[in-house]
């Protein structure tokens, strides 16, 4: 469908630049306003779009994101536990637009990388010279028998912040004292690997305060997980006997779900929970698959130095959607990747060799109000894949003062990262 749009201020500026170029008799300048489109306005996409404009104010940057309000996942476990309101997780794109990024509040439904155009849900198209895909994750609603989108209205995943977060909170509030809350955890890779365990602790905090006879059952398709000893010690200290975890080798892998009865089936047992939080297997956001940037795993292979897709030219993939080796899928990683990708694109457009990124990642886990620990990593490309260059985890035997300080730091981190992307 052909689309005409009103000339924007940017068009006017561009034609003025073209005129200027002609008068300066330097024709290359007429083309020197490359168009970079970013699909997905999460931590990765928003940070990338802003960094592109900051590094080269001559770029035309468009951020394509259907939601006018972004709802952040980090700290959404606190919302589930009733410790925080969802509005504290929400941000607009006003500041992103103020940086000179054109924000298109539309869903991208098609990518034609031959023509270098993106089709939007309203039928219009956006042309690009470079495209950054930052679509985050989608649930694989075909991966766990019985668990489809309709089932997620009854047994919420709450793995994308928003309505699902509130649904899980409402179910916890409605549950009787003495009920069981089940959390089903998928095998890797998943968004924010330690988050299921953070969630278990914070739900335990809510239950201990409001419904102390209740229990939490974690059915896990993994044997080991990040910061496991820290979590286990904290649960023992704060919520003795409340959290039971059945690991993969104890038969914890969930094989099917019955949303009619809230029944969860594993290889070796059946469980019925009053509240069932089913976190299904995941894949890169749908547009990555439509564009052809995702491989058989459902995720997008990239060159770690430039975030260029290994499958498609002129397309870069950042954030949870990309295969980033040792970097956990997290807001912090997406933000760092967005900035590094912006630098790689600006270098490439200028014909310069890419710099090798050195990415910082931080991951805070809160177990109770005033009780948190963290993992901080530095990641660098090695043998075509990201590898941990340095990782520091909070000490296992730290004092409560240290845990309190990390809880304060976590809040500071949230302010900084949301400020980077949206503030």
């Amino acid at each position, binding site marked *: 469908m052909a689309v005409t749009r009103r000339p924007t201020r940017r068009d006017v500026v561009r034609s003025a630049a073209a005129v200027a170029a002609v008068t300066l008799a330097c024709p290359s300048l007429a083309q020197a306003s490359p168009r970079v489109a970013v699909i997905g306005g999460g931590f990765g996409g928003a940070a990338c779009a802003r960094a592109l404009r900051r590094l080269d104010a001559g770029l035309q940057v468009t951020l394509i994101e259907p939601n006018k309000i972004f709802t952040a996942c980090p700290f959404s476990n606190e919302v589930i536990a009733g410790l925080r309101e969802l509005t504290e997780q929400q941000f607009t794109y006003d500041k992103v637009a103020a940086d000179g990024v054109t924000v298109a509040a539309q869903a991208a439904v098609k990518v034609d990388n031959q023509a270098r155009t993106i089709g939007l849900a309203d039928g219009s198209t956006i042309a690009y010279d470079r495209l950054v895909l930052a679509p985050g994750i989608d649930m694989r609603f075909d991966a766990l028998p019985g668990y489809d989108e309709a089932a997620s209205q009854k047994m919420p995943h709450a793995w994308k912040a928003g309505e699902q977060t509130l649904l899980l909170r409402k179910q916890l509030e409605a549950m009787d004292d003495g009920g069981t809350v089940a959390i089903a955890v998928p095998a890797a890779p998943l968004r924010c690997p330690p988050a299921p365990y953070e969630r278990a602790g914070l739900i335990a905090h809510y239950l201990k305060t409001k419904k102390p006879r209740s229990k939490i059952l974690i059915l896990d398709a993994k*044997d080991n997980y990040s910061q496991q000893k820290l979590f286990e010690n904290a649960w023992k200290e704060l919520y003795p006997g409340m959290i039971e975890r059945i690991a*993969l*080798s*104890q*038969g914890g892998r969930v094989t099917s779900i019955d949303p009619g009865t809230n029944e969860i089936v594993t*290889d*070796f*047992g059946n469980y019925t929970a009053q509240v069932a939080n089913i976190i299904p297997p995941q894949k890169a956001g749908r547009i990555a698959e439509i564009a052809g940037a995702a491989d058989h795993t459902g995720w997008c292979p990239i060159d770690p130095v430039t975030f260029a897709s290994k499958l498609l030219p002129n397309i870069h993939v950042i954030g949870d959607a990309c295969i980033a080796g040792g970097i956990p899928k997290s807001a912090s990683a997406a933000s760092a990747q967005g900035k590094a990708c912006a630098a790689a694109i600006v270098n490439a457009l200028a014909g310069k060799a890419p710099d090798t990124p050195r990415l910082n990642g931080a991951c805070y886990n809160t177990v109770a109000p005033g009780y948190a620990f963290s993992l901080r990593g530095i990641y660098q490309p090695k043998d075509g894949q990201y590898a941990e260059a340095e990782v520091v985890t909070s000490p296992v035997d730290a004092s409560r003062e240290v845990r309190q300080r990390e809880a304060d730091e976590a809040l500071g981190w949230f302010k900084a990262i949301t400020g980077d992307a949206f503030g």
Partner: protein
Amino acid sequence: MPSALINVPPKAKRGDVIEIKTLMSHIMETGYRHTASGEVVPRDIITSFACRYNGTEIFRADLYPAIAANPFISFFTTATESGKFEFEWIGDKGFSETASASITVE
């Protein structure tokens, strides 16, 4: 500490094809790894698994070092009569474990 997990359907119709699942906790040390001081970590694996249905062997598997820790073995059989499934795991260092489960066939 070894422990077996067994999943046999408690009931089935005669002639039904049923799935049996087993999981044995085991380190499955390959024998190809070395300690920091260069000594070989001795092999410690399960070498064989067998299942008998009312005394008759219906399934057997040989296991090798490439099999991951905590071997999960699942197979299918036909439910012919009520009775007992017996499972046996044998391995290095005198490892020997058994488990059993009953089925009612109607």
